[in-house]
């Protein structure tokens, strides 16, 4: 028992602007730990999303570009094509990646762009005040689905990891979560693996992270964790969907 735990070096001292219990900060920390451990700070470029994590560059001290809503994969493509030696990651929410930016992520994955995407699925548009996302659960109330998501009207939540895994171009696609310590350990491993695949120049990699948004779910952080576990994890199954070695998903 007992290890050393402290803020990764690449994280700044600035307190985050996130709501109490919001897992964005936690996921930032995992990314930061991986950057530290891989020793790639000096050649890493992050792409900030438009979403609650828009200020990620205030917390992780590497070069950053700030994307437009949904377009981070296109920006990452632009960078990696002209500077394949840089390590590039995008950090995107579910509104960002699964709604407005779904074309960009699919095509980046399909072209096999060699960057890493951290995809934070919190089943809602956090930043703009809790509107419905493509990943919102059936029946879930949001400000734009005040009577609960009606599947007959707007369909089922999109499973991004599975969707991307049908693509024939090799890639690493996995779904993780950070709602419990045991999952957090796994999630970090997956993030590290994703960065490593990039460093080896092997493939596109994406880690979907099932997350919580206590504020817009109208729950306390602890309740939110419970809801995520009960409702989301049974729909969004954890684990690797695709590795560059396996041709097709698990």
């Amino acid at each position, binding site marked *: 028992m007992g*290890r050393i735990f402290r803020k990764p070096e690449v994280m700044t001292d600035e307190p985050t602007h996130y709501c109490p219990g919001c897992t964005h900060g936690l996921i930032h920390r995992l990314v930061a730990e991986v950057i530290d451990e891989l020793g790639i700070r000096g050649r890493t470029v992050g792409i900030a999303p438009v979403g609650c994590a828009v200020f990620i560059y205030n917390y992780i001290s590497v070069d950053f570009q700030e994307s437009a809503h949904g377009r981070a994969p296109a920006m990452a493509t632009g960078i990696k094509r002209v500077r394949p030696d840089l390590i590039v990651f995008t950090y995107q929410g579910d509104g960002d990646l699964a709604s407005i930016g779904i074309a960009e992520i699919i095509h980046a994955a399909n072209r096999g762009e060699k960057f890493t995407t951290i995809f934070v699925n919190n089943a809602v548009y956090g930043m703009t005040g809790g509107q419905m996302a493509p990943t919102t659960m059936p029946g879930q109330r949001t400000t734009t689905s005040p009577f609960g998501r009606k599947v007959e009207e707007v369909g089922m939540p999109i499973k991004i990891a599975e969707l991307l895994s049908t693509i024939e171009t090799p890639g690493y696609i996995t779904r993780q979560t950070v709602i419990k310590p045991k999952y957090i350990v796994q999630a970090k491993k997956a993030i590290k693996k994703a960065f490593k695949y990039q460093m080896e120049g092997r493939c596109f990699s994406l880690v979907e992270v099932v997350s919580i948004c206590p504020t817009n779910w109208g729950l306390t952080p602890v309740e939110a964790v419970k809801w995520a576990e009960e409702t989301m994890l049974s729909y969004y199954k954890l684990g690797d969907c695709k590795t560059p070695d396996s041709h097709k998903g698990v």
Partner: protein
Amino acid sequence: MDCMTYKFSIDVDRCKGCGLCVSVCPKKVLEISDKVNKKGYFPVRQAHPEDCNFCGACYLMCPDVAISITETAEDDREQE
């Protein structure tokens, strides 16, 4: 440096009192305090530090990196 042990600390002003660490501590060491911090949150505190086994679950779970567990030589301890 012969006699190593761990130091547990909470950055009270980073803590937002979300309670997630409390919920995952296997030893029920933590609780939310009733003193407001600078930002207006009620931060967490080690109610039973003696039970802490430095497992790090709280660190892992904290979204705000408000907890740290560091190695420290026995004699360093007093300086804190």
